[in-house]
């Protein structure tokens, strides 16, 4: 304590006086010693020399004595920092290259990490979100299908694994009784839902079990956003009623803002139990899934077994067609991000590799520089610097430079993230919440320190023992250019080339996939089509006939529009995804085992749909007006089905059974075969698909497709008027040009591909810098040798071949390893590649050639320099 106080006083008073005082004291003591020696009979010169020799290094001793007054670690750190800053300024070219390289590497990592962190790593914004589980049913043919009400009730009642459970689904209802009919989205949930997702009411209350049962009063809880934007945010809304699909619902509460659970924005919540009868058969499926919170300590598989046992018991007590159904359970966090996870991890991997390249570039630069600084270090060792002290100083210097690089990288990340979010496709959960927050800062700081250490330790590892005399005498760089350092540098460049080949190969694969997907014939002509999406509310359109009448009149009116060439209607338009699949079987074919019953997409179309969309008719005929209610039931299949079952003959005339051989279902006659249509997006394999005529299966939800002669959107206002003239209470779900919608199915692929391609470009650039740097150093270190060879009669060609061979060895090694690594890693890309194999040899060759070209370009400069060395001048100087 007293010691600290003395030191502090001294520090504040300044230390200059102390240094002088100590120097004087040492000097006087040297004299005292010399006099002592003299008194014992030495000559005065001898005595002084003896005293000095006996005393030791006065400067070092003075410094050590003075240092007792300081806080040495901290002060030497400050000193190293100052020294580091000075040496950064002293070599601005070198420092700039190092800082920019690190900034690129660290910036790319921070940007991608912030996205990965937000989308994949951060817990979902619900209480104990890590224990939230998504439950559904599953059987041999399909995973994750809806949970029936009966099964849900049994699960909730008998399970031992979950704290609570809630069913949820969404639905579209029309809100009337206000200015304009409003197409709204309802979240239909059971009463436990709000507690599971941690939502609290801002006004009023949420559902209780009393509200959530058949026969209860019809109640509704409003979402905050809907309440403020559409209902004026009036607190008097409580106890009023909303007319939804023509029925009146009592408003009992408004949620506090911020609940986001459903994939699309939900306007209000309705109690799910209100629409369910407990007597409903156990195999009656809707679209309900179940959210549940695991009890602490219960594993997912244990919970699954628990639910399976309940289903098995039910199968014994109440056997039915779904006895083989089992529970599907996954962590909610996984289900929300599974389709973006592979691409995001791939990008994270790519930027990680880029940082490795950046690090090895910088390590090489640091090594080259530390070789030229060998003399400086030798001198400092000679005058008494300890090895540990020197290492600490080199490390501090590198940490400083990597910290600057990291800070710059953070700016880069901030900037590139803004661009990233602007370009990003819609629908990636939570992506727009990405920000440079504390976690990203921490990540960047850790990364900067790590790279600083990695890079700074390179010369320490390779230095081995420094031979002072040699280093001082050599006066140049050969002093520390040990064999170890040389091979270490070579290894770094080989690693860079390896990584670059891998990145070039992967991005090449994805680019080819994107191009393939873009050029895929979608099976229809998406240009000049205006799509009008409608859902008729069942309250006003109670029977199939009224539905059919409406659409007949609508299509007729649309056809009269000038500018509308053809008009068709379909239930599930191309690229809308999976609108529902079901089992089927072909009459007359061998009956498949129960677990092998095939599935097909089922779609509904009117006679003009195929012609309007340009979907080619391959066999038979399209629907006609004769295929109406009461006429024989007919269907059109796509080529996938036709080729699968009738590879040699025509499918027309055969019959298809809806539901497969193991359950009741209508039988349709196949009247035509049409071309495949990419139903799930341009980069998806075509699925089996069966069309039924609209007249025989009228659907409230249809999309009218209008082929226009001019720009599709020009027709939009007229189309709106026509809809309003038919039913002014009918909201339009969407009305837009179809082409954009089809292209949008590739948005995500385009996004991740472009990012990866950018990173591959960055990798190419960085490794070119690496190859250049290494070779340049190699030539510089051998200028004299080259000059001697030239003087002894070697031709410039010989020199070029010699130097070129050095570069080629590294390139060959790097490419060989890169091809192996790329080949080995390619299976990770399987899910991301489309239309080509992940082991595409052509792409590997192209990637290799690109890397060779860039490396050759980078090597050309130093190689040319090697051949231009003027032997006479160089040798004279040496």
């Amino acid at each position, binding site marked *: 304590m*007293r010691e600290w106080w003395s030191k502090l006083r001294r520090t504040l008073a300044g230390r200059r006086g102390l240094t002088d*005082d100590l120097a004087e004291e040492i000097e006087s003591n040297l004299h*005292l010693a010399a006099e002592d020696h003299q008194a014992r009979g030495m000559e005065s010169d001898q005595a002084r020399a003896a005293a000095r020799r*006996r005393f030791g290094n006065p400067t070092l001793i003075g410094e050590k004595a003075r240092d*007792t007054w300081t806080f040495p670690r901290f002060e030497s750190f400050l000193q190293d920092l100052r020294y580091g800053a000075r040496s950064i300024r002293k070599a601005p070219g070198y420092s700039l290259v190092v800082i920019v390289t690190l900034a690129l590497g660290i910036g790319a990592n921070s940007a991608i990490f912030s996205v990965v962190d937000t989308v994949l790593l951060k817990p979902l914004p619900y209480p104990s979100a890590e224990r939230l589980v998504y439950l559904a049913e599953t059987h041999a043919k399909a995973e994750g299908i809806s949970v029936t009400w009966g099964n849900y009730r049994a699960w909730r009642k008998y399970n031992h694994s979950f704290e609570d459970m809630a069913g949820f689904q969404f639905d579209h209802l029309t809100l009337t009784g206000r200015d304009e009919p409003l197409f709204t989205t309802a979240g239909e949930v059971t009463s436990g839902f709000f507690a599971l997702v941690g939502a609290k009411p801002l006004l009023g209350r949420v559902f209780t079990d009393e509200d959530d049962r058949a026969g209860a009063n019809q109640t509704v809880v409003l979402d905050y956003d809907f309440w403020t934007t559409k209902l004026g945010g009036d607190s008097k809304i409580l106890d009023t009623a909303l007319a939804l699909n023509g029925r009146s619902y009592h408003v009992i509460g408004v949620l506090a803002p911020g609940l986001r659970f459903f994939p699309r924005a939900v306007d209000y919540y309705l109690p799910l139990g209100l629409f369910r009868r407990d007597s409903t058969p156990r195999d009656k499926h809707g679209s309900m899934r179940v959210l549940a919170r695991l009890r602490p300590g219960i594993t997912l598989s244990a919970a699954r077994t628990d639910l399976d046992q309940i289903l098995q018991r039910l199968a014994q007590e109440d056997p039915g067609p779904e006895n083989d159904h089992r529970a599907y359970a996954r962590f909610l966090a996984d289900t929300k991000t599974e389709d973006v996870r592979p691409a995001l991890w791939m990008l994270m991997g790519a930027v990680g590799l880029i940082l490795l390249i950046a690090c090895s570039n910088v390590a090489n630069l640091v090594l080259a520089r530390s070789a030229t600084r060998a003399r400086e270090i030798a001198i400092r060792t000679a005058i008494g610097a300890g090895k540990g002290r020197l290492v600490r100083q080199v490390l501090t210097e590198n940490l400083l430079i990597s910290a600057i690089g990291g800070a710059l990288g953070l700016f880069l990340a901030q900037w590139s993230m803004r661009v990233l979010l602007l370009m990003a496709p819609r629908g990636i959960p939570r992506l727009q919440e990405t920000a440079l927050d504390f976690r990203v800062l921490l990540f960047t700081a850790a990364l900067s320190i790590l790279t600083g250490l990695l890079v700074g330790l390179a010369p320490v590892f390779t230095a081995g023992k420094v031979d002072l005399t040699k280093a001082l005498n050599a006066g140049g760089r050969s002093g520390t250019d040990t064999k170890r350092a040389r091979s270490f540098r070579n290894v770094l460049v080989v690693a860079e080339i390896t990584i670059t080949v891998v990145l070039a190969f992967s991005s090449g694969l994805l680019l080819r996939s994107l191009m393939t997907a873009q050029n895929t014939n979608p099976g229809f002509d998406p240009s000049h089509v205006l799509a009008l999406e409608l859902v008729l509310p069942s309250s006003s359109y109670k029977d199939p006939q009224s539905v059919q009448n409406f659409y007949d009149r609508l299509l007729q009116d649309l056809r009269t529009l000038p500018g509308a060439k053809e008009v068709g209607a379909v239930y599930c338009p191309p690229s809308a995804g999976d609108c529902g699949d079901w089992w089927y079987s072909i009459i007359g074919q061998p009956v498949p085992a129960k677990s092998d019953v095939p599935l097909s997409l089922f779609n509904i179309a009117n006679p003009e749909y195929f012609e309007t969309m340009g979907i080619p008719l391959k066999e038979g005929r399209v629907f006609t007006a004769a295929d109406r209610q009461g006429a024989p039931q007919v269907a059109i299949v796509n080529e996938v089905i036709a080729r699968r079952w009738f590879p040699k003959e025509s499918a027309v005339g055969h019959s298809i059974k809806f539901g497969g051989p193991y359950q009741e279902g209508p039988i349709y006659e196949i009247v035509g075969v049409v071309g495949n249509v990419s139903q799930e997006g341009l980069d998806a394999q075509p699925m089996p698909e069966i069309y039924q005529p609209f007249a025989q299966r009228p659907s409230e939800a249809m999309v009218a497709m209008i082929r226009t002669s001019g720009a599709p959107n020009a027709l939009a206002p007229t189309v709106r008027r026509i809809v309003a003239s038919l039913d002014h209470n009918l909201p339009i779900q969407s009305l837009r040009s179809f082409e954009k919608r089809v292209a949008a199915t590739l948005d995500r692929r385009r996004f991740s591909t472009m990012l990866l391609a950018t990173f591959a470009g960055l990798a190419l650039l960085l490794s070119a810098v690496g190859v250049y740097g290494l070779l340049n150093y190699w030539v510089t270190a051998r200028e004299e040798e080259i000059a001697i060879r030239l003087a002894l009669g070697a031709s410039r060609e010989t020199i070029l071949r010699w130097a070129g061979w050095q570069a080629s060895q590294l390139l060959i090694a790097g490419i060989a390893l890169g091809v192996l690594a790329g080949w080995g890693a390619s299976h990770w890309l399987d899910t991301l590649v489309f239309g080509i194999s992940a082991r595409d040899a052509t792409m590997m060759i192209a990637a290799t050639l690109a890397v060779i070209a860039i490396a050759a370009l980078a090597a050309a400069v130093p190689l040319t320099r090697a051949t231009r060395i003027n032997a006479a001048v160089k040798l004279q100087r040496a």
Partner: protein
Amino acid sequence: MSTVDNLSERLEFLQGTLEVLILRSLQIGPNHAYGIGQFIEHNSDSEFLVDNGSLYPALQRLLQREWIASQWKVSPNSRRAKYYRLTPLGRKQLTVATTKWQRFVEAMGRVLAPKGQSNA
């Protein structure tokens, strides 16, 4: 380099010993750094060699603890030198340290003594 003193044959200072020895050397009166070194070497029959790299920092540490004080004075052969003297605090510390060291030495001696003698 010539080796005037063969360091390996001398005793090394244990942690904290040098400081006690400095205090002891000042007990007989103020002295300068060179004198202190000489005193320790003489009185240890040259078993201890005082390294200036340890002596000077040790003096500074004692100053910081205020166990000694320093003053520039003129030596008997009329040379300016920095003299150190014990402070009352240092005197007290010396007594404490001496007792401790004696106990330490005795204990070491007992343990290291040939077996059988101590219990005989």
